[in-house]
């Protein structure tokens, strides 16, 4: 039939989807497995087709392919229209042209359209230099945009949250953030709203992100191709604090940062740059360079003590004890359960996160030691995370309005700061953290990966519970990349059931599973981001590449293995802190400084 050129696939060619098939792409013959898209087939043939919206989040097992940008279109012989290569399956005998003049003209015209509805303030855009749209404009040589008088440019209110800035004027409707927020994280803060020219991704009622169910996990920022979603940048304010002679500025670095920072300087994923990072921070001008791992060990002391206390009560037959205990180090996870499980606020550990424990100790114990007034001590943290920016602003973590942690910079911001300071990072000599809050054990290091917190807690809890030295420190059963992992650890004859989830979607599944009676656990570790903090929203962009995340995790396990001390309770500086300042875990002082409360933050709509 003359008008029908895109035939509906018949049973025969569906059959061929299972088998291998031969096709020709840009005159190259290629064999691919059934079910391969044209985009992937071209990649296998060494042809990278330009694309914008398409994103294969391998790690998460999810592909974002709305086929909306139409940049990756190709010409397929026999088809009336150009086909989006990302969403078109190969068929046997297909002849594909990825860069014919017809394709090039279409691709450039569509890109010109996208640019015609995009601000041209690249000079000061936070994404400049790593913006996928900008790269495309460079690659395809766009030199002018047809001028139409009074051409409308879609504009939206800019939304500043404590962690994330939404500048939707720069949105290209790739829908990656929507996919991540809904399908992966099941947070549901974002949805496509409006339609046509005014279509955009936004929270309900276009309210501020801060008033939405957003957890600030930052995974949307991590996948945004343009400057539409970016982190709140505090580098300038940190520089100002460093330049202020009245301020003493201390910095803490989270474990996951050292496994990824090198990538921003061209190093392979998983390169450990702990020593170089310390050197760089010192060179930038921080007065003291400390390690969040120290606070991670402290967290284990408190959280481990809490776990043991609850376990003991359970074994003594107390039926009211809150079990399983849930970890509380991940601020996006804390936000998530405050939003979604307001009936369960008494279940998670009350222990603050390492960042906040560090801040609280720094502004009391350390300030005292250094003889610096609280408001003259500036605590900066380097975090793989954007939710940490929100966390450090929470009122619970302020004393008389002064926050325990003043600024939380992301790994990306630190990389930028190092570049701004003109430091040749790659050739820096390794340096060590300062004492006392730079001392840490291997247990603190593995906080940066999924399963790490619970492994660290297990090392300490098991030894304290049984009173015997552990025979093996590595709990392989707690390590893995499955979205939900379950394991049992023998506590002297008592099996302790442990659940581990990373990504909030898996966390939801786990919690709903518990409610449905599918699981029974004593302890659960939850991290909001893929792979744990190594895949955090503040890390160098991994763009869904599972290998990058795996390499970062391995680096942390490597550092753990190299550490002379690997159990938090063996950290001499921690022991000293308790003896000189805190007394003992769960003491009154520890409660005041190291524990917190949770609030019902389920979304309320006010008129």
């Amino acid at each position, binding site marked *: 039939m003359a008008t029908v050129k895109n035939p509906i696939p018949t049973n025969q060619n569906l059959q061929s989807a299972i088998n291998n098939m031969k096709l020709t792409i840009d005159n190259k013959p290629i064999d691919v497995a059934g079910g391969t898209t044209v985009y992937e087939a071209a990649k296998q043939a060494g042809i990278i087709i330009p694309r914008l919206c398409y994103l294969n989040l391998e790690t998460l097992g999810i592909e974002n392919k709305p086929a909306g940008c139409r940049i990756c279109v190709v010409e397929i012989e026999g088809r009336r229209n150009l086909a989006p290569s990302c969403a078109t399956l190969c068929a046997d005998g297909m002849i594909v042209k990825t860069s014919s003049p017809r394709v090039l003209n279409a691709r450039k015209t569509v890109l010109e359209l996208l640019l015609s509805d995009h601000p041209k303030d690249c000079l000061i855009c936070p994404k400049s230099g790593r913006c996928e749209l900008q790269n495309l404009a460079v690659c395809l040589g766009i030199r002018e945009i047809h001028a139409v008088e009074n051409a409308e440019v879609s504009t939206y209110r800019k939304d500043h949250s404590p962690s994330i800035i939404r500048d939707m004027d720069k949105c290209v409707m790739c829908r990656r953030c929507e996919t991540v927020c*809904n399908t992966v994280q099941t947070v549901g803060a974002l949805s496509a709203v409006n339609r046509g020219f005014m279509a955009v991704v936004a929270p309900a009622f276009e309210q501020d992100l801060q008033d939405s169910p957003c957890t600030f996990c930052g995974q949307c920022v991590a996948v945004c191709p343009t400057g539409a979603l970016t982190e709140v940048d505090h580098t300038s304010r940190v520089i100002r604090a460093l330049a202020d002679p009245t301020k003493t500025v201390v910095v803490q670095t989270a474990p996951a940062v050292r496994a990824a920072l090198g990538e921003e300087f061209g190093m392979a994923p998983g390169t450990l740059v702990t020593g170089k990072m310390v050197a760089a921070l010192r060179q930038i001008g921080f007065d003291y360079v400390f390690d969040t791992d120290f606070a991670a060990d402290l967290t284990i002391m408190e959280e481990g003590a809490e776990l043991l206390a609850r376990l003991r009560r359970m074994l003594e037959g107390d*039926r009211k004890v809150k*079990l399983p205990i849930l970890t509380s180090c991940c601020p996006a996870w804390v936000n998530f359960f405050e939003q979604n499980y307001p009936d369960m606020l008494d279940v998670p550990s009350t222990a603050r996160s390492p960042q906040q424990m560090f801040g609280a100790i720094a502004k009391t114990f350390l300030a005292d030691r250094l003889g610096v007034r609280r408001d003259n001590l500036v605590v900066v943290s380097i975090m793989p995370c954007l939710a940490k920016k929100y966390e450090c602003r929470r009122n619970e973590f302020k004393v008389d309005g002064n926050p325990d942690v003043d600024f939380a910079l992301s790994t990306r911001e630190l990389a930028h700061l190092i570049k701004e300071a003109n430091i040749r990072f790659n050739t820096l000599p390794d340096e060590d953290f300062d004492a006392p809050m730079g001392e840490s054990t291997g247990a603190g290091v593995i906080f940066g990966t999924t399963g790490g917190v619970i492994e660290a807690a297990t090392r300490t809890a098991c030894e304290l519970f049984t009173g015997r030295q552990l025979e093996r420190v590595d709990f392989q059963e707690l390590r893995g990349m499955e979205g939900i992992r379950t394991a049992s650890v023998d506590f002297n004859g008592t099996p302790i059931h442990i659940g581990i989830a990373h990504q909030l979607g898996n966390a939801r599944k786990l919690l709903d599973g518990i409610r449905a009676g599918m699981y*029974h656990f004593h302890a659960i570790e939850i991290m909001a981001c893929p792979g744990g903090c190594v895949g955090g929203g503040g890390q160098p962009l991994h763009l869904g590449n599972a290998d990058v995340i795996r390499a970062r995790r391995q680096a942390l396990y490597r550092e753990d293995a190299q550490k002379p001390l690997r159990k938090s309770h063996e950290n001499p500086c921690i022991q000293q802190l308790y003896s000189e300042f805190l007394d003992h875990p769960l003491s009154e002082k520890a409660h005041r400084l190291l524990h917190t409360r949770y609030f019902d933050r389920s979304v*309320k709509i006010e008129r």
Partner: protein
Amino acid sequence: MDSVNYNEREAPAGSSNGAGAGLKACQVQAIKNICQSFHNDEGELINILHKTQEAFGYLPPEVQAVVAGELRIPAAKVYGIVTFYTFFTMQPKGKYPISVCLGTACYVRGSEKIVEALKKELDIDIGGITPDGKFSIDSLRCVGACGLAPVMLIGDRVHGRVDALHIKDILAQYP
């Protein structure tokens, strides 16, 4: 494991989480009833919103939030739907909502002039409502009364073969 008393908790009802603030209890209940009549099925969201708009006249945020809570879906999703379909409105309508057909048949027979005349007469824009809440103007695409073009609806009543010069007289029929 009996000590895991966490399992004994009941999941909170969807709308106990504060959605619905600003609505009267009976209004919240009315929305819940509508949702239940569709078995709280997410797939019926559009039908549910139709019924809800029928009941409330429009779909303000607090109403959408209750629907979202009942169906256990994000409010953003409900909002995404409400803003996608032109039939749904977040603005209250006038006592006499006016809809001018801007379908092709009416367009070529001069419906634009009617819109202009209405805007001028009522001093509001399309999508607007008069300060006294009496009239609101909207446009729609084809009510299928093309034989009577140009056509305008006031409430349910169809005014056919409308002449821009007679707008004032037509409006005067509505007290």
